[in-house]
């Protein structure tokens, strides 16, 4: 029985009105057909390509164009973006606020990226703060947090968290090679700070819907940091216990809030860490392969139980 037949039946049974029937029948046939997602992706891709080209042009032609022209253009673009956002935004609210139009979030995003570009140019050309990038990143993170909360933008919040991570000395591209103890400690500090701040702001009702962004980023950074400790083989017991603690917390949160990404984090990161510890003690391929078969089955059984108990969709 197709959805159209069901809708007919529900109308005949008086569960839905004729108006609802007409609307829902149209929607299920793609009438009207929403291009909302496609237009958003197009705008995002456009902004990213535009700023990439702008950065490339500025870095390639800075000598020919001259500082005055470059800074004027960047400043005008920045001012135009922020003027647009401040003039069109709805009044601030602690709750979630919808964007006034489709382009609004992307104009704000363009402004933020232009800010980053201009700041970088200024420092590289004039060394205003003598290469103290931490101050720039600190200021940038602060500005982006303010803008994210003022205009209710998850995109800008992600940028703010990225800038803050930069201040802590974190960047994704550095992960494979920089896994020393100091680096790890600051990663954990960052994760705890981000998660804690997200939780406090949510408790205070300040853009509570941002919590997911804080937690997802915080959880991933925390797991990477703890896993790097497990891999390093020094103080293994401490890191092993930390990994178990993080997995337990992630699992508990995921199950309690029905946010199964956290269950997935606990399963995958936990399995990788524990397997690393166990496999290094095993001798021979047979033992290693047996380990994967046995533990894989155990994990699968546990996941099926979780899925049947908590994660069923139909």
């Amino acid at each position, binding site marked *: 029985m*197709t959805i159209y037949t069901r809708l007919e039946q529900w109308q005949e049974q008086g569960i839905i009105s004729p108006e609802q029937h007409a609307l829902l029948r149209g929607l299920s046939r793609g009438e009207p057909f929403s291009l909302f997602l496609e237009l958003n992706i197009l705008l995002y891709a456009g902004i990213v390509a535009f700023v*990439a080209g702008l950065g*490339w042009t500025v870095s390639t032609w800075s000598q020919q164009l001259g500082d005055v022209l470059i800074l004027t253009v960047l400043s005008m673009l920045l001012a135009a973006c922020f003027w647009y956002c401040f003039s069109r935004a709805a009044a601030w609210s602690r709750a979630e606020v919808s964007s006034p139009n489709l382009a609004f979030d992307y104009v704000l995003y363009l402004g933020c*990226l232009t800010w980053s570009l201009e700041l*970088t140019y200024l420092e590289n050309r004039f060394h205003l703060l003598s290469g103290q990038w931490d101050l720039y990143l600190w200021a940038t993170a602060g500005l982006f947090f303010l803008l994210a909360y003022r205009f209710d933008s998850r995109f800008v919040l*992600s940028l703010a968290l*990225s800038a803050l991570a930069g201040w802590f000395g974190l960047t994704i591209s550095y992960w494979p090679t920089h896994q020393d103890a100091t680096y790890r400690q600051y990663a954990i500090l960052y994760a705890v700070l981000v998660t804690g701040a997200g939780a406090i702001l949510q408790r205070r009702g300040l853009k509570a819907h941002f919590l997911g962004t804080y937690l997802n980023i915080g959880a991933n950074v925390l797991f990477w940091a703890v896993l790097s400790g497990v891999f390093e083989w020094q103080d293994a017991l401490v890191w092993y216990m930390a990994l178990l603690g993080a997995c337990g917390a992630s699992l508990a949160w995921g199950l309690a809030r029905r946010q199964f990404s956290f269950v997935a984090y606990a399963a995958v990161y936990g399995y990788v860490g524990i397997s690393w510890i166990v496999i290094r003690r095993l001798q021979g391929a*047979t033992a290693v392969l047996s380990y994967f*078969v046995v533990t894989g089955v155990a994990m*699968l059984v546990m996941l099926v139980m979780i899925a049947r108990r908590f994660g069923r969709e139909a």
Partner: protein
Amino acid sequence: MRAYTESSEEALRARDLLKDWAGEGLLTQAQYQRMEQDTVCELRRTNIFLRLVMYLFTLIIVGAAVALFFEVFLSRQESGTLLLIFAAMSYAAAEFAVARARLYRYGIEEALATCSVLFLCYGLQATKPDGAQFLVPAVGAIAWLWIWRRFGLPYAFLGAMICVLGLPDYFTSSHSARHLIVAALYAVGLIAVAAARSHHRFTVLNDDYSVAEAFLWLGIYLAINLQLSPMNLLGNWWWGPRTAAEFSRPFYWTTWVLIWCLPPAVLARGVRLKDRWVIAAGAIAGILTLVTNKPYLGWPHHAWDPMLLGALLIAVALFLSRWLARGPSGIRHGFTARRLSGKDKQWMNAGAVGLGILSPHSFTPSPQPDSPDFRPGGGDSGGGGASSDF
């Protein structure tokens, strides 16, 4: 042929739509609960994260079990036939998981089906049928197609298309002929899918055909775009962009004309069918044409090229959204720029977390730390790109 009954899949589709409509406030809670009772079905689903993790662990179990079997009992010389047996066992297990446990997009049956095709291909490869090596990609493509039809897994269709890429190597050494054969095979597939689709326009199978058609359009486009073709990508990385000298001039320039003609045609079909996937395929093909046009013509890239492309994309998006918004009730020709589904918002939120973090690192120059030694607050990275070196 399908492992699931049409009524079960229609019930799941109805459930999804009801949930979405209730979330958007189009149904009251009482209406939703009453209607949901009519869409109960026996299939078991789970959410996307658990599905992915269960897929991963099933792959680990099956892979490790087969490797363990070979490690304990056999040498590699005898592996071919046994892999074929393991392929049959994996497939039987997938069928069992669906028939008995009623799993639907649950990860487990998907991984078992995936393993069955992989074992089949490796088994055939290991048995080394002399003069019939083309059987490996051919049988692989047929097996993936069967999995796609039987279990309705969209990525299985992509697997079949990837196998098809390996076929021309066994028949010709000509680069041009390889491109033509792949494009022709995809075109045959497209005609078959389009013909089959016309009978399922308003059924749940339409979604499967929609994704398959989009993959085929993109496949044809990539096969004829000599600067992008998967068959050339490796070569492009090693030896730089392809030039007209590597192909006959008529062939090279015919493909250049085609890469300009195909995207509008795909877009037009997607718009006519109101098919999200085909529209996306047309849009991606159009952007790729703009990106590869200069290498095609042998013109040099300029630093401002991405800026122009970005400006064009922004202009198109803004024009479309404004044009649609000015229509009666924000609708023109059956299209609207308004959000009508809660899923769109979920996708946007998920994308904002991932893309918001990754993109600044990828399109700004790499940070240049003054010192390799870490110090807290060193600020040598991140910052939405506020760390590049001019």
